[in-house]
């Protein structure tokens, strides 16, 4: 079943688009910061896939898509001079992970894991999104981002910790008190 699914995955363009366009655009958006450009990037990613030998991508189509998408998005960003490529600035784990109390302040009104996520360094957000939104394995994330598996493990671990210290403490989004106690 799996192998036929894989083939379908490679051949049913509609299913492919349905499944991946959203996450890919979301991913490209994180990098480019602009939805239109993110869409362009994803269109190009799929067009690239069209001319690819898809048989050879069987089984790792997904990391391939993310890798191509990422490279293009970075390229767009680099060319537009919006910011420095994140691999070159923030690839190493940062010691200045957000102070939980600071995160908490921001969380009070919003009360969501996402808000804490947004306080993390960009490269950490990227890795965490690839893991939990796009469900890639550490190894696949390593492929896509070029970071080492160990580094990814660390980034995810530290990121989850920051989130869990705030979120788990507070099952209901509005109960500030509980969270403070924790």
């Amino acid at each position, binding site marked *: 079943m799996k192998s036929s699914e894989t083939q379908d995955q490679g051949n049913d*363009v509609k299913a492919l688009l349905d499944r991946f366009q959203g996450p890919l655009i979301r991913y490209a958006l994180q990098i480019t910061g602009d939805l239109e450009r993110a869409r362009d990037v994803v269109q190009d990613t799929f067009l690239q896939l069209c001319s690819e030998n898809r048989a*050879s991508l069987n089984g790792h189509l997904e990391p391939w898509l993310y890798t191509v998408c990422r*490279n*293009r998005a970075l390229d767009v960003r*680099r060319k537009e001079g919006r910011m420095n490529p994140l691999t070159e600035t923030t690839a190493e784990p940062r010691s200045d992970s957000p102070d939980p109390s600071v995160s908490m302040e921001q969380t009070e009104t919003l009360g969501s894991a996402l808000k804490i996520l947004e306080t993390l360094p960009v490269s950490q957000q990227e890795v965490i999104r690839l893991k939990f939104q796009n469900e890639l394995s550490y190894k696949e994330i390593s492929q896509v981002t070029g970071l080492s598996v160990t580094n990814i493990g660390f980034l995810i671990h530290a990121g989850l910790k920051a989130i869990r210290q705030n979120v788990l403490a507070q099952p209901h989004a509005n109960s500030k008190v509980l969270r403070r106690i924790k």
Partner: protein
Amino acid sequence: MRIDPNDARLTAYALGELDETEQEAIEHELLHSEAARQAVDEIRATAEVLKKELGNEPRLQLSEGQRSSIERRFRPAKRKPLFAPSRVLYAGGAVLAAASLFLVVYLNWSAGRISLENAFDTDINGRIIGRASSPRTVVQESPKPVEVISKQSHPVQQTPEQVPTKSAVVQLDKERRGGGIGTELIVRNDAALQSLVQAAQTGQKEIVASSAVATPMAQPAMLKPTAGPGGGAGAHSFLRKFLLQDTASVSQGYESEEQKTLRDKGSHRQNFNTEAYDRVVDNPFLRATQNPLSTFSIDVDTAAYANLRRFLSSGALPPKDSVRIEEMVNYFAYSYSAPKNSDPFSAQVEVASAPWKPEHRLVKIGLKGREIAQDKRPSSNLVFLIDVSGSMQPPNKLPLIKRGLPLLVEKLTENDRVAIVVYAGASGLVLPSTTCDHKAQILAALENLESGGSTNGASGIQQAYDTAIANFIKGGTNRVILATDGDFNVGVTNQGELTRLIEEKAKSGVFLSVLGFGMGNYKDSTLEKLADKGNGNYAYVDSLQEARKVLVEEMGGTLITIAKDVKIQVEFNPALVGAYRLIGYENRILRAEDFNDDAKDAGEIGAGHTVTALYEVVPAGKEGDLPGIDALKYQKPVATTRESKSGELLTLKLRYKEPDGTTSKLIQVPVSDRGTGWAQASRDFKFASAVAALGMILRDSPYKGNATLGSVLELAEAGRGEDKQGYRVEFIELVGAARGLVEGRKVTD
């Protein structure tokens, strides 16, 4: 041992990322630690919350147009890529064999991964709703999956060699590519194919792999460009479509109406070439009254030309920013006369009309470094610092190094010393400094180099410089020759560290040569900076022929620095010059006051090197069409001196230091314009202006005037001269290839 609840392995465990052994170890720990068990539970709970929230983000979609463009292009082909419907047939056995190798590689690799399909559950919309938590999933170490992924695209691109094309240059390069990729596979997988590939390579002047093989991780996407889909009619259509884009566009492996759609969408459309080039903006025209001084550092780098050749040979125009005109012009040697006095170099200036804008004058400044005869060459103390990391395996990298460096070693004598330091995950001294009467020993050490592992540049460079310093030859050539693809993958910090180290070590008097190999110039700007920091030069070696040029023919220039911190300052005479523009050297411009500042670093000139710079000059009174500024309210126009009536067009001033000197010397050369037309100018003048004109066309420079590829061709033919090494002929072929591409487009439009 009790596991710390804050151990990152607990997260990996909770998320099912550990291999069996590690997992068992953790499970064992969990039995004994309540805190750890709680941590795991919390991690899982947090992960669920996070996933849920991330899943609630609004769903993003492509536009209908984008979607349908993809659907139109998408064919359910399993074997045949869309734009090379007959590739497999053309390519015959070689490709099939290669394809089966890919399969092997892939299977090996996929066996080491968590199956994606197993890892996901999806809802009917195809959305991922959860990950089957499978703590038992086996994850094995897999050999560089990243590289494998990028290789997947090779079968698609490697076949054009079979398609007859008109251009010999294009043909040659495609043959190279096929061979290169084949060999790369073989290196990893199958000795049986080696003979096949070698057979395919015979009859070529050089055996080279496509630089497209380069930089595995960073750009599976860009591996496409140089390949271009298909040849023959397919290639033409591709090139036409491609050329519809602005000239900076580097091909993608796809084309057709989507490209047009994209182009029509607006100017923000980016070209997805992931090679890194610093942005270059053409120097503008400056008014001589306001900016009488033009100051820049010389540059003898030639990498941009080799890169340009790679693009044009493969049927694609280079990205604008990769076209550095001064490097193109300086790739060629010009017959300037050698210095007659004790100066390390001579300076010659020629003025004639600008071929692309005859009402403008073109000033060609030529410097020629003193030649040093082979037997008068000072002793050399060389340290080869060779990157032997895993990414160096492709045949256009380490194997090319192993064939290129011996060419240099052969030319060395018993007065010279060579040491070899390699670096990968670890670095090591492979060959202690050895005098070159033991050539066999040196060659054997080179021959035995093998690649593998990751790249840790910093410790290698340390060791290389230490070795060079330990064997320092006073008054001789002390140089580290770094051969790398620039892919410092152990960590980006190493790259910064490397730069800092080199900057630090350059003070020891050891110079640096950087040889970039097969990297598709992806790290072009980085390597150029390394060379600059290290008082060195930088060349991009894409072929054995190029290795010969850099290491043998130009050995003097590459190895022996005869003057350093060479700066040029030109003072224009506003009586004759309305405005001027320095062509190229955009990233070498200095401030006027830097000219006399000896602390300010500038370029080096090697023995026998020629350096050429071109200025386009608008005669006084004809600068009306230039964007001007209002007349000054508080100042009169500049007062001119008696010398301004001397009839001199400009004064050329040069500053340089002896290689071991710290104070600079000054040379001044006044220049007059005799009003020569370009047709009467020297061959070198014509050829250099042809090269500059090609650069301006490829950069789509606003200053290209009436230059066309046709006029470049004529100009280059007129300037070809004897051309013993055939470099100028090669240039002419490249212009022809570029013209073929452009005209192909015009016919259809």
